[in-house]
């Protein structure tokens, strides 16, 4: 389960603040549980009747565990992808919200018994339902999913074995929108999300045969195995007395498979949904992830260079238009610059990639170059405009008395001198662009930061991935800064 589109902050603040009150009344400290209300129903969502409260099956299970421990639940809003990190830094006592059981999770945290069994299912466009039944039918095709999930790991494995192309998303809404729009050929996600999306969006079908099965669990800090054991006992009791079934029925996620699972879970010894993988440490995994990081660094570099090229070209035209253009042109360009600088680049990327998809369906990389390039063009144009206007009037007058046309003056006299003034801020902007390129992961481009986040999520630590990522960014930006400084020295010596 996972995250939907960014309306994150307001919901988060509201929910975090308001849910403190309930638990404060009990004598014992509240059980703070972290989840992401942006994930929506049936997991956790803001209550439509009172948006300051949350509801969902995870909310009810958290309440069961809390009450079983003699405490009151207190919801803490946290971005889904950050639940593990927030848990270990002590932001809350237990993390829930459709967290998938997997070996890496068990290696790093105290994980409860699974309380829900889901199926990873393949969704394809209605017209393709006969063609694409399983992953093996999707050789060479683009298959979307949410990054840093079991489904993504399955797709990465299938990339090597079956030759399909995994496309990582930051939310679980856009994969299906892109499926219907034709940007991807299939989506692999759990059946809860697939069913929910299917109800909202026509144009695709969910293949009945599951690709894999998985389980939702609650996670406790590694050092708090005792509380986890208590939670396990509470969950088993609720499985036996039918409380859990009631909750799942109420949220329409109960089916025969779920009944069979709960039967197995209560009859057998405590089930470990996944095995631990003690060999997968941050250090040893570096070699495994290095090729992917290098590939992502290459994407970051290419993306930044192309975006900067576009930004410089468009920026020069805008600056020239604002300096030399007619009043109407100047006004129009000023509106563009102010509109672009006054709105977040993230919003612009969404508009270009998703908002305009009805008019022009750009590939993600092209949309990223366009979004970053046009955004930075506004900033570049201001640098060039001020540099052009900083050229002393006698320089321009001398050029005019020689008979040069205004365009020749711009090209041969004013432009080259302005370039020297603009070089330092341009270098700054390129370095900033290099880092801002991480934003394009929201439109499915897996660049350096996104790849690092996937790596860090998988190994449960940011130390090695963060260091490697920082080194890669430095390796990309330092040569440019060095080159710019040399050029500045050379020009200032002239």
């Amino acid at each position: 389960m996972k995250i939907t589109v960014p309306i994150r902050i307001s919901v988060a603040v509201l929910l975090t603040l308001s849910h403190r009150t309930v638990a404060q009344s009990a004598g014992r400290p509240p059980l703070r549980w972290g989840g992401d209300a942006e994930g929506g129903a049936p997991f956790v969502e803001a209550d439509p009747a009172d948006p300051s409260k949350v509801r969902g099956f995870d909310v009810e299970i958290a309440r069961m565990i809390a009450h079983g421990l003699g405490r009151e639940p207190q919801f803490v809003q946290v971005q889904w992808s950050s639940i593990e990190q927030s848990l270990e830094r002590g932001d809350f006592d237990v993390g829930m919200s459709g967290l998938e059981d997997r070996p890496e999770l068990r290696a790093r945290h105290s994980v409860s018994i699974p309380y829900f069994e889901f199926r990873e299912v393949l969704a394809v466009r209605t017209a393709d339902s006969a063609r694409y039944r399983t992953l093996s039918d999707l050789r060479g095709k683009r298959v979307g999913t949410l990054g840093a999930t079991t489904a993504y790991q399955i797709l990465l494995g299938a990339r090597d074995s079956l030759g399909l192309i995994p496309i990582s998303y930051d939310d679980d809404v856009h994969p299906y929108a892109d499926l219907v729009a034709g940007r991807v050929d299939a989506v692999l996600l759990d059946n809860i999300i697939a069913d929910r999306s299917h109800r909202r969006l026509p144009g695709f079908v969910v293949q009945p045969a599951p690709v894999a099965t998985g389980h939702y669990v609650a996670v406790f800090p590694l050092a708090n195995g005792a509380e986890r054991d208590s939670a396990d006992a509470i969950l088993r009791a609720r499985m036996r007395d039918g409380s859990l079934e009631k909750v799942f029925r109420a949220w329409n996620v109960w089916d025969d498979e779920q009944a069979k699972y709960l039967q197995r879970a209560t009859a057998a010894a405590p089930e470990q949904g996944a095995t631990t993988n003690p060999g997968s440490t941050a250090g040893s995994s570096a070699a495994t992830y290095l090729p992917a990081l290098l590939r992502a660094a290459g994407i970051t570099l290419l993306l930044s260079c192309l975006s900067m090229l576009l930004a410089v070209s468009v920026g020069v035209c805008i600056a020239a238009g604002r300096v030399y253009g007619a009043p109407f042109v100047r006004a129009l360009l000023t509106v563009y610059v102010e509109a672009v600088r006054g709105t977040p680049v993230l919003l612009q990327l969404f508009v270009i990639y998703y908002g305009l998809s009805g008019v022009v369906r750009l590939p993600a990389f092209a949309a990223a170059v366009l979004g970053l390039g046009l955004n930075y063009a506004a900033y570049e144009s201001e640098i060039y405009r001020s540099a052009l206007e900083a050229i002393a009037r006698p320089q321009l007058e001398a050029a005019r008395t020689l008979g040069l046309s205004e365009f020749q003056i711009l090209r041969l006299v004013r432009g080259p001198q302005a370039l020297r003034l603009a070089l330092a801020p341009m270098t700054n902007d390129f370095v900033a662009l290099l880092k801002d390129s991480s934003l394009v992961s929201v439109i499915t481009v897996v660049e350096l930061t996104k790849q690092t986040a996937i790596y860090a999520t998988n190994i449960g630590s940011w130390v090695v991935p963060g260091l490697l990522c920082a080194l890669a960014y430095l390796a990309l930006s330092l040569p440019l800064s060095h080159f710019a400084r040399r050029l500045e020295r050379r020009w200032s010596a002239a």
Partner: protein
Amino acid sequence: MERGMTLSVRGLRVLRGEREVLRGVDVDVAPGEICALMGASGAGKTTVLRAVAALQPFDGGSITVDEVVLRPGPLPVQSQLGALRRHVGMVFQAHALFEHLSALDNVTLAPIHVLRWDRGRAESVAHELLESLGVGARASAFPRQLSGGEAQRVAIARALAPNPSLLLMDEPTAALDPARRGALGEKLRELAREGRALLVSTHDVDFARACADRVITLADGAIVPA
């Protein structure tokens, strides 16, 4: 315009807001003649030069350079001034050399890009000019590497490269020591002997008397009767 004159300025008036900066100035300069415009700071010398070079609009009178006539009103756009630009060269008080170009490239800029000469011809002429002005050895230097006197001579070479019939010079002696002033005066006389008309603004009385054929004195925007 009087017959045989390169430059003829008649009744030149320039307003700056309510203030009349030039009040009916008449100036004639014949080929081979050096005319010095003298006067205190603010007298209007530079304004006359800028109006003749079509860098400054004027409000009354007329300016004729060879067959090109400038009328009162807004400045014509640069593309309409081609004929004037071919006839008039200007040396600015602070040289205004292009900082990003070497002395040689400053001089060859107009021949290559305006007159469409090939680079070889443009450089050959530029070297000759720089040599004749005593700065041939500084051809590859950039403006900030030149002394005031060297920059002045490179600026003259740049103005002369397109071979204008009228050369305007704004305070050419401002950055020069007495020895350099004498050399400059000699160079100007040489240019005049080649048939060029020179209009030189200066407040240097000795320089004007030594090298000008005629001196016009301005005070408060009007010519002071001799």
